[in-house]
């Protein structure tokens, strides 16, 4: 049974036109909205992050993880999903200007770092993202 579930985990969760409204991880179903943001913050785990990253065609490296973990810290501190500007500033404050700039973040999380990185970090969709 557990083999079967592990196998399931490796299937890309959607094909064009059939985008799923949930993720299945270790047999547990995690609800998402239609854009793929998970609905309940508490259900986030590193596996969830990896799964969402696959959907976004991003291979998570340590550079991605440090941004994702900072985003979760940002949310805990301010109860907000960041916009691009505030994300850049927050990353610059915490990791230095080399990483706190939009080009660096765009390379890690194309095409929209604030949205994509928030999604991977399990935060709600940034409301003020215009």
């Amino acid at each position, binding site marked *: 049974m557990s083999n079967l579930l592990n196998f399931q985990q490796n299937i890309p969760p959607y094909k064009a036109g059939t985008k799923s409204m949930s993720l299945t991880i270790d047999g547990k179903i995690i609800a998402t909205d239609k854009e793929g943001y998970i609905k309940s913050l508490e259900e986030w785990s590193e596996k969830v992050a990896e799964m969402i990253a696959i959907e976004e065609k991003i291979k998570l490296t340590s550079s991605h993880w440090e941004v994702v973990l900072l985003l979760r810290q940002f949310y805990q*501190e*301010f*109860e*907000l999903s*960041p*916009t691009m*500007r*505030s994300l850049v*500033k*927050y990353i610059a404050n915490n990791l230095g200007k080399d990483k706190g700039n939009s080009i660096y973040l765009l390379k890690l999380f194309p095409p929209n770092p604030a949205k994509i990185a928030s999604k991977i970090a399990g935060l709600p969709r940034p*409301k*003020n993202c*215009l």
Partner: protein
Amino acid sequence: MNKPKTKKLLFLFRHAPYGSALAKEGIDAVLAASAYDQDLSVLFMDDGVFQLLKHQKPDDIEEKNIINILSAFTLYDIQSLFVCQESLAERGLRNTDIAIGINIVAHNTVSQLLSQQDHILSF
């Protein structure tokens, strides 16, 4: 092409948090406006000063803590924050009751501030 002129916008908060959605809606408006590189100021007066208090515990009513969101303002380059001194005094509040860095201004400065704006949005 001429660069469009920057507008001076002031967001006025006059209501206590949590009882209505005004405080939250106003903050969302400030954060959204910050994306447009305008000259933003935020002023708390009347019951709006209650939004600035320390020790808010909205978890029990499943609301987000206004102070946590307000403390993110510097990350959005919103630096011009003001609170009306008289409004604080009328409610028996002191400077030490305020949870964030903010300019405490007297009534005449409030009037000046209001008269300098292109637009005032009241919440």
